[in-house]
């Protein structure tokens, strides 16, 4: 099933952002987790959301998907409220958020990606099964389709989650730390997938924690620490000043921008705070 992406019909020069947050504030009991966030993520981008622990990265994407209660502000996905755009969004939650000892196999989990389009009560059939199989194949997991999910490695479980999002056949993919704790094969598979999605005109937004790999994987950057610190094209935004403001303001990198040095410094700071 294909959907006419709304943003393609927007007049040239004023593309509708894939995600648009206005004055967004989220609080858990008094403490603000996100404060007055204004953010546009361009359609077609590979966006990383980066910030220290407790910066509200996961909350930001949950708020965008209507999974966190908003204290204030609004969310639009391709120019419309999330509720009306659900079918355009694929979601990859953190791998650790579910119990992998659940009695089911990889194929069945991936098929869950088709439930949204199916809607209430309707059962998945042959078509949904084929979609799920193709998604598993794309992530090199076809041989594991009938494997009980607890018997998969961490990386394989992550690929099952990614395949499930692929089965959603979305325009925007939102992923919460897809690279955490995965093996090299899986990391490559994820990177290939991100590039392929972008080549097909899709938008990907990832919460990401690894500053070292980020410049290689993404082309748009959002630096977050409760507030938006900076956002824009990756290279222009990934500056020592911005990173030190994001991670607590104690880096003193002078001269030419050395991505690796910045990354190391920032991670050291993250450990301290």
């Amino acid at each position, binding site marked *: 099933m294909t959907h006419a992406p709304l943003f393609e019909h927007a007049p040239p020069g004023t593309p509708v952002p894939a995600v648009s947050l206005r004055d967004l504030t989220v609080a858990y009991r008094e403490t603000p987790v996100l404060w007055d966030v204004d953010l546009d993520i361009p359609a077609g981008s590979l966006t990383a959301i980066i910030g220290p622990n407790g910066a509200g990265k996961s909350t930001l994407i949950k708020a965008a998907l209507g*999974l966190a209660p908003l204290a204030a502000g609004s969310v639009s996905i391709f120019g419309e409220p999330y509720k009306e755009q659900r079918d355009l*969004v694929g979601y990859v939650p953190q791998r650790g958020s579910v119990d992998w000892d659940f*009695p*089911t196999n990889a194929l069945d989990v991936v098929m869950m990606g088709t439930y949204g389009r199916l809607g209430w*009560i309707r059962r998945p059939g042959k078509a949904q099964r084929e979609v799920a199989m193709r998604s598993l194949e794309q992530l090199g997991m076809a041989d594991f389709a009938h494997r009980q999910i607890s018997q998969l490695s961490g990386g394989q479980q992550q690929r099952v989650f990614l395949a499930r999002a692929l089965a959603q056949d979305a325009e925007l993919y939102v992923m919460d730390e897809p690279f955490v704790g995965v093996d090299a094969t899986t990391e490559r598979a994820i990177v290939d997938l991100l590039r392929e999605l972008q080549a097909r005109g899709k938008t990907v937004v990832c919460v990401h924690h690894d500053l070292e790999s980020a410049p290689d994987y993404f082309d748009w950057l959002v630096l977050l620490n409760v507030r938006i610190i900076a956002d824009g094209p990756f290279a222009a935004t990934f500056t020592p000043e911005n990173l030190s403001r994001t991670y607590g303001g104690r880096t003193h990198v002078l001269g030419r921008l050395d991505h690796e040095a910045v990354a190391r410094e920032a991670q050291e700071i993250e450990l301290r705070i």
Partner: protein
Amino acid sequence: MSELLRDLIFDYTLRNVALGSALLGIVSGVLGSYAVLRRQGLLGDTLAHAALPGICIAFLITGSRAQIPLLLGAGIAGWVGTMILLLIVRRTVLSEDAALGIVLSTFFGFGVLLLTFINQRDDANQAGLDKYLFGQAAALIESDVIIFAILGGVALALVLLFYQEFKLLTFDPEFAGSLGFGTTKLSVLLTSLIVVAVVIGLQTVGVVLMAAMLIGPAAAARQWTDRLGVMIVLSAAFGAVAGVVGAVLSFTEERLPTGPTIVLALTVIVFASLAFAPARGLVWEWWRRRQQRRAWALEVARLKAEGHVR
């Protein structure tokens, strides 16, 4: 043995008790599967205890022990208990186990208070309400079984209808929410169905042992399979077998109390499953470890013999 089988079919009392217990086993086996997988095993315990004041209040209002108002009271109280539970978890800093404890003890305490009050009144009708504490399956009559069948049938039909949605909710509620399935609504529906199971169980195994009927069959079934559908069917089968075996055993000359006998039969199934189920069972695990140790020892010995290791 054949006499027992004949009684099971033709003896009015035994037939009702066995049928009622089997129905309870099936319904609580199916709904218990979801409760156990959602790590809410003790939810059933809380709901069962919370039902007691409902029974007492229904009795005080109607002044009779007519079945349907009492079960309705139990259901309403159990449901109110659930909503308070959800409210505590959502709105306070307390964790779910604390909330379960609060609802269980408050409602049960209130129930016991009402029970004492009813017992002190000079009312010929009063006797027998305490049977809901430990259950009295032996007193099941045909109309009870019919009520159970209707309630259970509706609950099972809803589980069948929302099978996909309940599976998604149980495995990954966040993802379910992102797809637009109202997770709060689904949770409330699922928990309400557990209340139905509890209502069926109150008369048979009672408030105190109801949790076992929800947790036991599901925990045993999980040992034997890695498929949710199979687990649910197996859980229902275990519940039904425990129900019938318990009912029959309690009808032998010793006249054992039915509810506890059902739970003991269930316990045997649970322990057998924990020990002997392939892949997940303890005996299997022990055997596998032994095989591994053997293979390892053999390998080391071979390497030594070939001079690779000293």
